[in-house]
C-alpha cells in the first residue's frame, strides 16, 4: 500500500523542481549572457594587450603586475574604499531613521514616503549638476548661507580633503529612499506580539529598539548594506559629473580608472584587469559582510 501511495509524490516533487528551474531560467539566462560571459571574456582580455583595433596577444599576468605598480590604481582603490566606508553607513543609517519615523507616523505617511523616495527616482546626472551648484565655493547655496553667518567658504569640491565626504553625502541623499522602503517593509514584518511582550517586560525606547527591532531587522539590514556596498564600490557617474575625478584625483574611483583606460585610452587589456579586480573586491567585501553578519552561516 505504501508503494502505491508514495509513488505519485516523487514525480510531483520532480515536477515542482523542474517548474522552479523553469521560472528561474529566464533570469539565469540573462545573468549568464550579460554577466557571466562578459566576465569570462574580460578575464581573457585581462591576460592580453588588446587595444581598440581588437588585436591583442597574450601577455600573461603583465597587466596585473603593472596594476600592482601603478600608483593611479592604488589611488583609485583608496578613493573607492573611502567612498564606500562613508556612503554605506550614511545611506543605510538615513534609510533606517526615516523608516523608523515613517513606521510610527500615522498621518501623511504615504506623502512622506513619496517625498523621501523622490531623490532615488531623480536622474543622477541632473542631481549631480544641482549639487555641484549647492556645493560651489563661490556663490553656492551652502556657502552663501554660511557666508551670511560669517563663516568662510568651505571647499566642498574645491579642495582635496572634503571631496569624498561631499560625494558620499550626495550618494546617501540619492540612495537612502531605497533602503528606507526595504527597511520599512522589514519593520512591518516584525510581529507586534514581540514588541508587546518586551513592553510588558519593561522594555522601552532604545532598549526595545536594541533587543527587539534591530534583531528582527537584521536580515533586511544585511541586504541593504550589501546592496549599498556593491553600489558604492561601483561609483562612477556621480564623481564623473560632479568632479571629473578631481581635484587632483581626490575623487578618482576604480570604475573611473577603468573607464578612462578602456574608453579614453583604449587599453582594453589593462581596463579588463581593473574590471576583474573590481569584481574580486566587490565579491570579497560582500562575502565578508555576509559571513560577519551571521546570515551566511548554515542553519
Amino acid at each position, binding site marked *: 500500500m505504501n508503494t502505491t501511495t508514495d509513488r505519485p509524490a516523487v514525480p510531483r516533487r520532480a515536477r515542482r523542481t523542474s517548474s522552479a528551474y523553469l521560472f528561474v531560467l529566464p533570469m539565469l539566462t540573462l545573468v549568464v549572457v550579460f554577466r557571466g560571459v562578459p566576465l569570462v571574456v574580460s578575464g581573457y582580455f585581462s591576460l592580453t594587450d588588446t587595444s*581598440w583595433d581588437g588585436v591583442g596577444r597574450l601577455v600573461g599576468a603583465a597587466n596585473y603586475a603593472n596594476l600592482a605598480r601603478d600608483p593611479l590604481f592604488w589611488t583609485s582603490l583608496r578613493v573607492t574604499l573611502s567612498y564606500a566606508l562613508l556612503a554605506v553607513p550614511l545611506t543605510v543609517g538615513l534609510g533606517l531613521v526615516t523608516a523608523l519615523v515613517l513606521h510610527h507616523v500615522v498621518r501623511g505617511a504615504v506623502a512622506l514616503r513619496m517625498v523621501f523616495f523622490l531623490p532615488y527616482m531623480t536622474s543622477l546626472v541632473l542631481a549631480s549638476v544641482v549639487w555641484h551648484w549647492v556645493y560651489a565655493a563661490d556663490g553656492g547655496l551652502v556657502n552663501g548661507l554660511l557666508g551670511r553667518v560669517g563663516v568662510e567658504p568651505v571647499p566642498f*569640491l*574645491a579642495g582635496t580633503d572634503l571631496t569624498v565626504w561631499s560625494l558620499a553625502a550626495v550618494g546617501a541623499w540619492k540612495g537612502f529612499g531605497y533602503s528606507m522602503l526595504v527597511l520599512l517593509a522589514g519593520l512591518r514584518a516584525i510581529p507586534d506580539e514581540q514588541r508587546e511582550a518586551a513592553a510588558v517586560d519593561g522594555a522601552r525606547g532604545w532598549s526595545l529598539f536594541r533587543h527587539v527591532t534591530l534583531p528582527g531587522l537584521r536580515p533586511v539590514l544585511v541586504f541593504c548594506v550589501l546592496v549599498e556596498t556593491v553600489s558604492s564600490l561601483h561609483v562612477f557617474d556621480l564623481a564623473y559629473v560632479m568632479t571629473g575625478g578631481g581635484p587632483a584625483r581626490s575623487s578618482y574611483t576604480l570604475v573611473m580608472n577603468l573607464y578612462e583606460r578602456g574608453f579614453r585610452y583604449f587599453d582594453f587589456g589593462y581596463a579588463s584587469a581593473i574590471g576583474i579586480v573590481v569584481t574580486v573586491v566587490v565579491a570579497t567585501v560582500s562575502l565578508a559582510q555576509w559571513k560577519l553578519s551571521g546570515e551566511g552561516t548554515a542553519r
Partner: protein
Amino acid sequence: MRAPVRCGRWLASALVLVALVSCTSPTVPRHAVALWMYPIFPDAGVSRAFWADVERRFEDAHPDVDLRIELLPWENNNVKVATAFAAGRPPDLVLFRPEQVADYAARGLLQPVDDVLGPVAGELSKSTLDASSHGGRAYLVPLYQLAMTMACNRRVLTSAGFEHPPSTWAEVRVLADRLADRGMYALDYPAGLQVSLNLTFYPLLWQAGGSVYTSDGTRSAVNSPEGVRALEFLVDLYRRGAIAQSAVTQPHDPARGPMGRGQAACSPLTTLAELRQLKRVLGADVVAPAPPLADAERVGFGYPSGLVLTARSGSPDDARKFLRFMLRADVLSELCAKSGFLPTRPSAACARDDPDAQAFAAQLDVLFPGEPRASAPQVAGLVAPHVQAALLGDESPSEALDAAAREVDALLERGGP
C-alpha cells in the same frame, strides 16, 4: 464563359505592371557612402536642414552615389568610433580632430587623401596642413577651424581702469590687482578634469615658449623652465583670488560660469557661437572679443576639424567625390555662416560684415594646433591632476610638473599608447 474573363484580368494586370515599369527611370546601380557627422551647429534644426540639403545636392550631382549621413550626438563619440573600428565596421567617412588623425593613421585605419586636398593645399595655412597630416601624408579634409580666443567684459574692465582687454600676462596681473578687492575675477579659468588642457594650461605653456613634448617626442617637456613659469603665473592668480576657487571642478561653459554671471573680466572662447551666447547673456555692448594672451609669444589653441576616409571604406572613390564636394568654397562658406565656425579656406570666408567673425578670423595666424600625437589624451590625463594639485597648494609648480613629467616619461617609455 468565366475563363476568358479571368484571362482578361490577368492580361490587364500585366499591362498595368509593364506600363508602371516602363514609366520609371532606368535603374542606376548606386554605391552607398556612409558619413558619421556630429553636432557642429548651435541649433539641431539648422543642422538637420543643412545636411539634408548637402545630401540632396550631392546626390543630384552624383546619381550613382547613395549618400547616407547619420547625425550622431557627441556623447561617447570616442567610444563609439573606436568600437566601430574595432568591430571592423566603421563608416566610409567620419568627422575627426587632428589628435584622432594621428592615432588612427598610425594604426593604418585611414586612407590618405592627398589627391583630394592637393588642389586647395596652396590656400590652406601651414598649421592646418600640418594638423591634417601624419607621416607626410594628408589624412584629414579640413572643413572648419576651432579657434580659441578670449572674450572680455567691458564693464568689469572699465571698473578696473582698463580701456582695452589685457593682452599680456603682465596686464592680467595688473588687472588681478585692481579687481582683488572688488570680488571679481580677472580670468574665468575652467580647470575641471573634464576640460581639455588644450583650452586651459597648454596655451599658457606655449605662450611661455614651452611645449608638452621634447622636439623628438620621446619625453615630456612640461617641466621645462617655461612650463614652470606658466604654472607659477596660474597658481599666483588662483591664490590671489583672481580665478574662482571652484575653477578646479568647473567645466568649460562661459555663459554659465563666472564670466556669464558678470563676475569675471575675461574668459577663453572656442567658437563664434560661444561669443554670441555671451553677448545674449551680458549684452552685445558689454562683451568684447580679444586675442589670445602673450608672454614670450602670442599663441592660442586652434585646430581644423574635418572628414577622414576610413581604410575599410567600400566605396573610396565615391567617398572622395563627396570630400571634394565638401571642400567647395560655396559649401564651406555656408557651413561657416550656419555653424559659426571659421572655414579652413580663406576664399570661403563668410560673414565678412560681421565684426565678431572677423575678430575670430584675425586670430588665425596665432593659432597653434597643439601637439597632436597618439599619446596626447593620455598625457593630458596625467598632467591635469598635477596642475590642479599645484592650484590647490598640495604641490609647488615645479614639484607638480616634475611629477607629471615622470609619469609621462614612464608612459612614453612603455611605448603606449
